[in-house]
């Protein structure tokens, strides 16, 4: 999706990051004193969410730059750390939670190179491993064609050995990563789905072969990669479709270049359903066999999740027993019945992921 309208916070006017984006977008932009002015602008459109994907606001991040992923008490969390570098996305997936997160959602680029530098210096002094991602509130690489953010992050992470950066994307915007000295401290990561789901639910994203080709290129540039099957969409015949995607991965990538593969099925806050029905009337994604989970989100009936996960995990294992496979937000029974173990202790899954990151990316805690 093309950015059509640019708003700029006066506080970031004239800053290098701002000027780079202006130049790349070929838009001079409109200076706005208050964000509420942009909300009024968006509200005048028939689909403000869609317009928010074409409207960029360059500003500072008013809150914390580094946040721990909130997780929930009922399902196992991977203890990820979020680097809040921007919000929203130029692609348009029917299931995207960001549609309902911000009101109304809007592309925000945070001019924060200096703060990021400082935060990473602090992290480098700490005695633990961090897995940090920018893909929680935005797609990590949508910014690549208009800013130097991804390359800047890769360079900054390369300077330390406590934290690994995971750039999670559904794009193929990788060109600027090519000649950067990454020092193995960046994992480039793709969310994967079946060609059918990509076609029907992930508007404006790269195709499956394009994502895998991009991953192969990154590997050829020395990067490690990871894959996330999230959201797995459960419908008749989906086991076959997902295991075929797994086969495709190994046509492009060697197992030793994969740091981890995560699996998580579609889950949603009940409030998202009317939004999907309105914005994506052709989508059937909300009409699976959902039940209300213990975290109050809707999730697939557990035996269905187990069936699909088992097929997927078995297929990955048949290709390589070394790749670390984990579930996003699942419980003991699901882990045990599909992977045969459960990271029971608090923080255990996080430690396992840290270990995989350390092995693949050369991290250390100095202990």
């Amino acid at each position, binding site marked *: 999706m093309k950015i059509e309208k640019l708003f700029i916070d006066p506080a970031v006017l004239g800053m290098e990051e701002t000027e780079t984006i202006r130049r790349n977008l070929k838009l001079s932009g409109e200076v706005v004193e208050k964000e509420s002015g942009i909300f009024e602008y968006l509200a005048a459109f028939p689909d403000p969410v869609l317009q928010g994907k074409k409207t960029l606001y360059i500003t500072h991040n008013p809150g914390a730059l580094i946040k721990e992923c909130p997780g929930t008490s*009922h399902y196992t969390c991977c203890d990820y750390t979020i680097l809040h570098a921007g919000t929203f996305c130029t692609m348009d997936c029917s299931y995207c939670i960001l549609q309902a997160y911000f009101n109304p959602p809007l592309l925000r680029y945070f001019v924060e190179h200096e703060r990021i530098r400082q935060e990473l210096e602090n992290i480098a002094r700490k005695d633990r491993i961090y897995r940090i991602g920018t893909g929680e509130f935005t797609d990590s690489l949508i910014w690549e064609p208009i800013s130097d953010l991804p390359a800047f992050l890769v360079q900054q992470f390369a300077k330390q050995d406590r934290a690994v950066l995971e750039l999670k994307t559904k794009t193929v915007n990788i060109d600027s990563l090519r000649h950067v000295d990454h020092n193995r401290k960046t994992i480039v990561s793709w969310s994967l789905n079946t060609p059918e789901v990509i076609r029907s639910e992930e508007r404006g994203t790269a195709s499956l072969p394009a994502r895998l080709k991009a991953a192969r290129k990154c590997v050829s540039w020395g990067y490690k990669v990871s894959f996330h099957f999230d959201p797995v969409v459960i419908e008749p015949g989906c086991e076959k479709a997902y295991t075929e995607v797994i086969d495709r991965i190994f046509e492009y990538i060697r197992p030793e270049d994969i740091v981890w593969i995560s699996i998580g099925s579609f889950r949603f806050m009940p409030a998202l359903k009317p939004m999907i029905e309105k914005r994506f009337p052709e989508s*059937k994604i*909300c*009409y699976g*066999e959902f*039940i*209300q*989970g*213990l975290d109050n989100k809707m*999730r697939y*009936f*557990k*035996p*269905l999740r187990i069936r699909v996960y088992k097929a997927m995990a078995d297929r990955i294992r048949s290709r390589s027993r070394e790749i670390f496979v984990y579930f996003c937000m699942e*419980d*003991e*029974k699901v882990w045990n019945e599909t992977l045969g173990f459960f990271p029971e202790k608090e923080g255990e899954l996080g430690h396992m992921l840290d270990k995989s990151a350390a092995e693949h990316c050369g991290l250390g805690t100095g202990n």
Partner: protein
Amino acid sequence: MITDKSVGLSEIIQDDHPYRITTARSVDSLSRSVDLSGVLHPCILLKEGGTEDRGGYVVVSGHLRIEAMKQTGGTLVPARVVDASQDRQAALLHCARAAVMDNAFSRPLDMVEKAKGVALLNRYMSLEEIVKDSPALFNERLNLRIAENLLTLGRQPANIHRMVLESRLSIKTLAKLETFDPDIRDRFIRLFQYIKMGQNKQLDVVVHIQEIAAREDLSIAEFMDSEKVDSIVTMDHPDENLKSAHLRNFLAERRFPEKTKARQEYRAALKELDFGNAISLDPPRDFEGDTYRISFDFKTADEFNRALDKLIRARYSDRLRELIK
């Protein structure tokens, strides 16, 4: 613009009631009161042109009083007459407000009356303005969502209003039905004419039918015309609750086949444990959590001991282990 005067019954338009919001039909008691003491409060009339064979006054409020007067043989109606010849828009807005307020401040309005009131006012005011002024107009505070639903209802024909008044159709269901094509909407209306059910159940039925059709690549019409749905809807049975339960069970099974299967299997396995009716062993809700719950009723020490014996016996049962795996 407003004058108090007596207006002849023959001058009042009898076949067009754009301001009528009351749903009451019978004026018998009111007729007796009018017979005894005459019309105590003046009606509000709007002065329109009028022709030789048609009166020139439109009733704004007091429809029932005028009806009662007719029954008692009265000829002159005490009225406050609104003249629209100067500022027509202002006069019409005044009439709409008066029609609503005159009713709302003399008795609680039913759902259809409120809906007709909102629809009437919406000709001259935005919904937001109606919501803002609602305490003064309706003698109660409305919020925007309720006002939107009322507007939807207010614009419906008389048969829908009747269904709402008879609790055959809920306003929430109606709002949902408005999102469908008219043909589909009418099919659902017909279904609810056949089978009466509460508001939440009605909505569940609509949502399940819509989602089953989507899941199975059928049109809603195709699914509703299917033999099974048709046989339940047209079942020759006087008990509407039974028909409603049949329909809802069928839809739930079709919408959630795996969950239904798991429940059935669980029930069958439970039966083999031979707990009988006194002991219940409930699985986690939707089989999602990991906590089961057992409970039993007893009236005497003997019953307590019998239940306990059964539970102790179940300890060694493989069935129990399979059930709680």
